[in-house]
């Protein structure tokens, strides 16, 4: 048996830039935000300070963003990379 992966490919449309708008508009339940552009509230959610690396490479994924506000970790000190 082998695995077939049907939803891997991103269409060529990803290579073109369209009219700027919120990326959340296309996602019913999933919201993507690069950590470098996250709001103070979003950055507070993990309850720790982001590492310098995360600022460049991290994409935050909020699933069911309407309930994220219930998430409350106390603030931070470190991150193991």
């Amino acid at each position, binding site marked *: *048996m*082998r*695995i*077939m*992966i*049907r*939803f*891997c*490919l*991103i269409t060529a449309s*990803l*290579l*073109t*830039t*369209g009219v*700027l*708008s*919120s*990326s*959340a508009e*296309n*996602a*019913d*339940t*999933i*919201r*993507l935000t*690069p*950590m*470098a*552009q996250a709001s103070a509230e979003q950055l507070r*959610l*993990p*309850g*720790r300070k982001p*590492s*310098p*690396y*995360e600022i*460049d*490479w*991290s*994409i*935050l*994924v*909020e*699933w*069911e963003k309407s*309930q*994220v506000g219930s*998430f*409350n*970790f*106390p*603030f*931070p*000190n470190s*991150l*193991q*990379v």
Partner: protein
Amino acid sequence: MGKIPGGLFQFSVPEFITSLKRRHVDFVCGQRWVENGSDGWKTEVPFQLVRRPSPKDGIVPYIPYRATLSAWVKASSDRVDIHLRFVNRSGRQLDSQVFWICLLSGTGGPDSDQLTVPGFSRETFFSRQGRFQPWYPQENSFVFMPAKGSALTQLGWEHHEFYRKRDGTAIAVQQHLAVDGVRAAIIETQSGRCAVGLTSESAAILGGKIMNPCTDLGLGFGPLSDGDVADLCATAGFVEGGLPQLKKNISLVD
């Protein structure tokens, strides 16, 4: 919907670059994400690595050779699609390498010991011959590189064999049957079970620490001649219904 009370995941796109030649990883830096219209986010930058991989030292970037790294991420109702493009502009051939994609679902709180996704299973899963299995025994017995890289797909074994034959040496990997290119986890909520998973037909290495927890894939590519382009795609599924539903939604077919 409304299944995840406060779930916060993180993708690292990509986190580091490595190969199956030797036990070493180089952190990637310098991604500059901008909105890509209605198609999510994109970055296109010169390929840069971190010279001193210590958070205390901050980011000290350097360019190991000329190359371009692009990435696109896009969310839809039940998945996130990730596309990496790497263009070799070094003027020489580059050996086969692996870009590491991390899907982090934990590491929160002041002591980094709390989950950022309440109800997320500490045990995560991988697939072999179409069947999900617990990850911990694999991670515990077969780990061969940082980020708990602990299993090779067929592509991974091909990379490994290439280095072993050409150079007479490669990362020491305990023999095991090739695995499928998927890592997954379940989330128990008050209203039922959900699942998340990361899959790619370019997967070469499976990894991700139980302790974080995270579910990671190393996407293999190359060798690349000067001017060659590597396109790598991965999909993360976010579904209600557990692993069977995840398998169905991200089209894992026996």
